[in-house]
């Protein structure tokens, strides 16, 4: 037992009660206040991977976990190095982070805010994790981000698509690589107008919770700006498993496009139901009926099977992207796990590398230093092309993909085809955009836990 190992665990806050001096014999050594939460003092540094391992998003969480393990391997100089070879920043040497070997602990978010905070806390308080990475829902991301801000560690969000994560709930210690509802809408709208015409009438089905609302608001605003009309917006309970009673009235409503602001199981079922009702074979207002799913993921596409054929949506990343970073990542992920990575896997992988790189460049694990190194950081070579981590709201800005369900997929992995890579300029917005908390939204102060 080396002495270093012990003090690896930092303390959250040494408060007043700590001072209530219990007279201690000299063999009791109360550890002194560290410079910041969980300052790594040994030969290793611990990262915390918080992903859903039980519940409906367990498969997505598993994919994220695989990607994070791969990132740790690459950081420690094992495997083929993956994106370390293509990353534009050359601070990482494949010898861990700042010379310390990278280890990790895992936790189960259960896709519930409470459980996610509990497992994040246990990784911070018990295992001495210096950062938390991952997650598969916006509710969880916002909840864990707040926790990491209070605890004084860095939070790298996984799959979270709500505007709020880097909008009204943005935090100085929190960073998001994934895109958001506004960007989806901004990227989709021109393609929709090009493919379907500028005089469409849209019917929205929206999951009745925060993400659904922001998604609907964004896409309605973007499509109305090009001349579309929103016929109706119907809120569906999150717990719904069957959407037939919501789909049935669509055809008779005068709409000719159905927008499904659903995610996960909701989306799989509502799309399956819509295809069952034969909506895509119908003609309304003299035009072919169309369906749009603003946010796609590979697992949802797999769950919806053949039903996604021809349905448009947007993605943060797709393995078919043809750039150096993407190719390197797909190669090392594919060779290790025998399947191409999903877009949430890519985000989690990139976030680990970005965090490690920021530590190297800052020369410290101190969250405030790391945050500073990430703010305004411009990079390339992680798969998405040229990317900016904006300083004002800690949101990544990069090209957004518009994809469509492939008509004739040749295997289980190319069920989605890239229709257009929307350039980043088109999805840019001001940090004080009203959909992102307006002028009141602020990152607050950096907290290092000291």
């Amino acid at each position: 037992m080396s002495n270093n190992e012990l003090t690896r665990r930092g303390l959250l806050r040494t408060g007043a009660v700590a001072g209530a001096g219990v007279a201690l014999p000299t063999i009791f050594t109360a550890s002194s206040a560290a410079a910041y939460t969980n300052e790594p003092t040994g030969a290793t540094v611990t990262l915390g991977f918080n992903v859903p391992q039980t519940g409906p998003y367990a498969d997505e969480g598993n994919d994220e976990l695989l990607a994070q393990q791969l990132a740790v391997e690459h950081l420690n100089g094992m495997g083929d190095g993956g994106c370390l070879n293509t990353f534009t920043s050359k601070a990482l040497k494949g010898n861990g982070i700042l010379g310390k070997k990278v280890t990790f602990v895992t936790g189960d978010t259960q896709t519930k805010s409470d459980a996610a905070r509990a497992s994040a806390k246990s990784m911070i308080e018990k295992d001495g994790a210096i950062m938390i990475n991952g997650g598969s829902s916006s509710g969880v991301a916002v909840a864990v981000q707040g926790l990491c801000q209070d605890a004084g560690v860095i939070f790298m969000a996984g799959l979270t698509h709500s505007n709020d994560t880097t909008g009204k709930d943005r935090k100085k210690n929190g960073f998001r690589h994934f895109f958001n509802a506004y960007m989806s809408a901004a990227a989709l709208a021109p393609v929709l107008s090009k493919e379907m015409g500028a005089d469409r009438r849209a019917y929205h089905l929206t999951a009745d919770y925060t993400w659904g609302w922001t998604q609907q608001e964004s896409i309605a605003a973007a499509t109305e700006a090009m001349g579309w009309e929103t016929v109706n917006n119907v809120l569906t309970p999150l717990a719904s498993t069957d959407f037939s009673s919501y789909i049935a009235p669509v055809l008779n409503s005068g709409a000719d496009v159905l927008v499904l602001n659903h995610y996960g199981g909701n989306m799989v079922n509502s799309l399956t139901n819509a295809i069952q009702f034969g909506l895509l074979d119908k003609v309304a207002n003299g035009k072919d009926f169309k369906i749009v799913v603003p946010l796609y993921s590979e697992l949802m596409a797999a769950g919806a099977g053949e039903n996604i054929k021809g349905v448009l949506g947007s993605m943060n990343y797709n393995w078919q992207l043809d750039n150096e970073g993407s190719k390197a990542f797909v190669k090392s992920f594919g060779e290790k796990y025998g399947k191409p990575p999903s877009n949430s896997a890519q985000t989690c992988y990139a976030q680990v590398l970005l965090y490690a790189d920021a530590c190297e460049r800052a020369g410290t694990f101190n969250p405030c230093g790391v945050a500073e190194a990430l703010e305004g950081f411009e990079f390339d070579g992680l798969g998405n092309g040229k990317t900016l981590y904006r300083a004002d709201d800690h949101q990544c800005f990069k090209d957004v993909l518009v994809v469509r369900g492939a008509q004739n997929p040749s295997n289980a992995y190319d069920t989605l085809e890239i229709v257009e890579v929307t350039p980043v300029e088109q999805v840019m917005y001001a940090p004080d955009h009203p959909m992102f908390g307006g002028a009141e939204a602020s990152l607050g102060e950096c907290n290092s836990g000291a």
Partner: protein
Amino acid sequence: MDAIILQILNGLDKGSAYALIALGLTLIFGTLGVVNFAHGALFMIGAFCAVTVQRLLNLSFQTVDETQKDFLGNPLKVDTPYVEAWFGPEVGATIIDWSVPLAVVFAIPIMLAVGYAMERGLIKHFYKRPHADQILVTFGLAIVLQEIIKYFFGANPIQTPEPSALKGSLDIGLMLGFDPNAIIYPIWRLVYFAFSVVIIGGVFAFLQFTTFGMVVRAGMADRETVGLLGINIDKRFTIMFGIAAGVAGLAGVMYGPLNPPNYHMGMDFLVLSFVVVVVGGMGSLPGAVAAGFLLGILESFASTTWATTTIPGINQIIIYLVAIIILLTRPRGLLGRKGVMED
């Protein structure tokens, strides 16, 4: 008018699933007096019978096709299902296409066996224990069953499509003289409704017109007397448990094409189906069926734009609201017998 017909159709269709699950629950409660929280899991297992049959039919051997590349740039391995190799591509493809109806045939013996094993292995030991214990042990069983399924099939939903001949929808409105596209309804949903009517009718006929059914009904009314007459009622009740499991399983198999099965679909239905049973009247078979369809229709109407704009959120709570009102005003449920669990 057309909107009303449409929502009634929808309700009947939703109600079919509720009615089938509630029917099985009531059979178990009425015969064995057991509150079975694992009934949703039986529904889920049924759906995964369809998935398994589909997987079995799709068992393939691999040949390497040098002309095509996979995502890593290696030569593509092409899968050819054995069924297609044995029966020729066309017949094989048709067999795979009809995997869900085929799964019905497979599911019947499997579900009967699962039900029988469950009753003999576990439930039997809980007859004398309080309802709370029965709820708890079956709840634990439900968790175990769904975790086992998740271990083998993953958490993501799996498509079990209907045969392509039954894909698409019918324009019922046109037949009834409405405008085109006024009332469109998917064929498989109509099949599901018809199927559930057949199953429900079958169970009732079995209980009403066979000697076996008569004994079971007698046992439900007065178990002790039937036992005193020298009839081995326990054995018959075990078989009824198997039948109840079969009904839930078949409901699950046929449900697959409507919404792709996932490991937690049983839990999603569990609470609802208990509400249905209670609303219909604990232990009343016609009550369970009637309440199933009734709640399905109510749920459909509550999800119309008209209802949700009048009372926001009504679609979230309608089922529970109905349950509360019924329980407070007519505790024995819609068709429950007077005195059965009525206090």
